[in-house]
């Protein structure tokens, strides 16, 4: 019986389909997953739940992933939290915009499970369990 504390990951996407898919990738006993549906809710939940990492869509209503990422980087208690952006656009200019907003890494849609797990492992500095 393992008592190892799971890393908590905040998943943020306005699409119920994307959220469910990403949850299924991360939730197989590896991470404790919490979710939010837009950037505003993401920041509220991040402050309240202090996740170990955030995986966030770029295109969202109310507050985009880029804006939310900038807010996270400007927040005293969240600025060190790793953020992986999930984008539909993999072209260099979009990737650059992501990194300029302060994200640690990015993955493109459709999300590749191995890529997401490996990047999450890398930003968390932990082994895949």
């Amino acid at each position, binding site marked *: 019986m393992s008592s190892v504390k799971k890393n908590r990951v905040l998943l943020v996407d306005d699409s119920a389909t994307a959220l469910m898919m990403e949850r299924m990738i991360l939730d197989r006993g590896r991470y404790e997953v919490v979710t939010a549906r837009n950037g505003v809710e993401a920041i509220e939940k991040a402050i309240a739940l202090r996740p170990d990492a955030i995986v966030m869509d770029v295109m969202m209503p109310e507050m985009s992933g880029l804006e939310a990422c900038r807010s996270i980087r400007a927040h005293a208690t969240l600025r060190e939290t790793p953020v992986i952006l999930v984008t539909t656009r993999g072209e260099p200019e979009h990737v650059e915009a992501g990194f300029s907003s302060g994200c640690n890494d990015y993955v493109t*849609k459709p999300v590749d499970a191995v890529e997401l797990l490996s990047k999450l492992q890398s930003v968390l500095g932990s082994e895949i369990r």
Partner: protein
Amino acid sequence: MTIASELEARAEELEARALSLETEKRALEEEFREMSRRFVDLERQNTHLASLFVASYQLLSSADRDDVLTAIQEIVTNLVGSEEVAIYECDRSAGELVLAASCGLDADRLRRVPIGSGVIGRVAATGSSYLVTEAGTPSEECPDLTACIALRVADQVAGVVAIFRLLPQKNGFTRVDEELFDLLSTQAAGALSTSHLRARLGVAAGPSA
């Protein structure tokens, strides 16, 4: 035995041990690589199954028409990989397809398509889906169209899902995409027709899951 020959024997013993450890290390490294390959394969298979489950769940848990249309668009964007999609429903009395929802496209240009006309109209007329595969070439009539899926309820075509350009990082359709299209073909049509039935009967949608 002299000290020199003892040392020589010991050195040979250590060399043999080092060789054996080196062989063991290489075997373990190969085993680790094999385990990593299996992990990646299993992860891909899991994702494949998860995609089908998620698509099916989203379609079947959508009670009203707008939710079904949103679910279809989300499946195409998030699981297949295109942000240019048009969903049509058949209006048999008018003999045409009517645009029900779209994203990333000029809706005015696509609003109505006569059944039997062009690639999209022919898919509605024949019920045979159209797919640009790696080996195939896109239709000259509609070069941006990469897939057109007939939505079927029993033998009847209820509508079509037209998928235009794929996301830049997506190089073509995979086996999972083809299975998603099969699933869309049957389950999306069923979900749409159930939503129409619910609306006609005035059945309210229950709380969403």
